[in-house]
């Protein structure tokens, strides 16, 4: 198993979809290859489910520093969470930006109805 084969099997490794011998091959490679060993350790730190669970706090920067670093590290090695985060950020941006082009005038009859209601009321100006 070389580094490329190791990385291509990583998902199946965590999903327990490899045979025992394939799994052993991966672990043997990681034990002799420093970059792949680090990658395996990072993947063990946090699952994608946990990454998504804490995403809100991650973006609001309200996670404890050590937790934030673990999220950063997971993001570095997980293209799926990178895509999820990008879509999540885009959703927020779209929601915020779509607001302003819908502003019209207050309809004149509604405007007048409020003025009339204020006039009828024994309002603040006379209290």
């Amino acid at each position, binding site marked *: 198993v070389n580094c490329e084969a190791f990385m291509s099997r990583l998902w199946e490794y965590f999903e327990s979809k490899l045979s025992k011998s394939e799994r052993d091959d991966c672990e043997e490679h990681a034990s002799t290859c420093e970059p792949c060993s680090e990658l395996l350790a990072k993947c063990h730190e946090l699952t994608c489910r946990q990454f998504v669970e804490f995403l809100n706090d991650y973006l609001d920067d309200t996670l404890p520093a050590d937790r934030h670093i673990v999220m950063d590290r997971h993001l570095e090695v997980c293209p799926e969470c990178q895509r999820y985060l990008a879509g999540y950020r885009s959703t927020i941006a*779209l929601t915020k930006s779509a607001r302003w082009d819908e502003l019209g005038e207050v309809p004149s009859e509604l405007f007048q109805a409020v003025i009339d209601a204020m006039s009828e009321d024994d309002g603040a100006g006379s209290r």
Partner: protein
Amino acid sequence: MFSGGLDGRITNPDAKGAMTDVMRSHGPQILAAVQRLVADPDQARDAFQEGMLAAWKSLPGYQGRSTLSTWVHRVVINHALMLLRRRGRTHEQSLDDLLPSFTGYGHYLSSPPEWCEEPGTLLQREEVRSEVRQCVERLPDTYRVPLVLRDLEGMRMEEIAKLLEITVNAVKIRVHRARQALKSMLEPCLLEGAK
């Protein structure tokens, strides 16, 4: 009282004139905020009118801690939330189908799709702007209201919690779930449009 520089936009010395100024300068924003909260256009107009009247009646309590327009905006929003509570939750459906699913080992069941276009580019398309608004409106009240207050009104979590009488943690969870659901709802339109 109202000519003392509490709000740079207000020049009228009388209360009614000040309220009219606010309605003229900020009425469209306030009405749009109410519409996003209440969703139904007729109910939104009623809520706007009742909310403005509530602000008028409460005007003696205005202490100038914020601009008059901001204060009126908050009073009207509060009134719209009361209306929502009175209206009750008639068809609160679960969002579970719109949230990402994971395997027992915590991996995505299906890989998240890639959004090819930037939000700025997407928003140039009218159908995208329309889709975003429709999707927000389709969210159940429980999730739509915190999302609108956070992402559209820009309120702090603590402020939303106070308004909705729930914990800050509950607000965070609802906003997060609403964003996740909205993402899933938008994807068919956006990914189709990108092809």
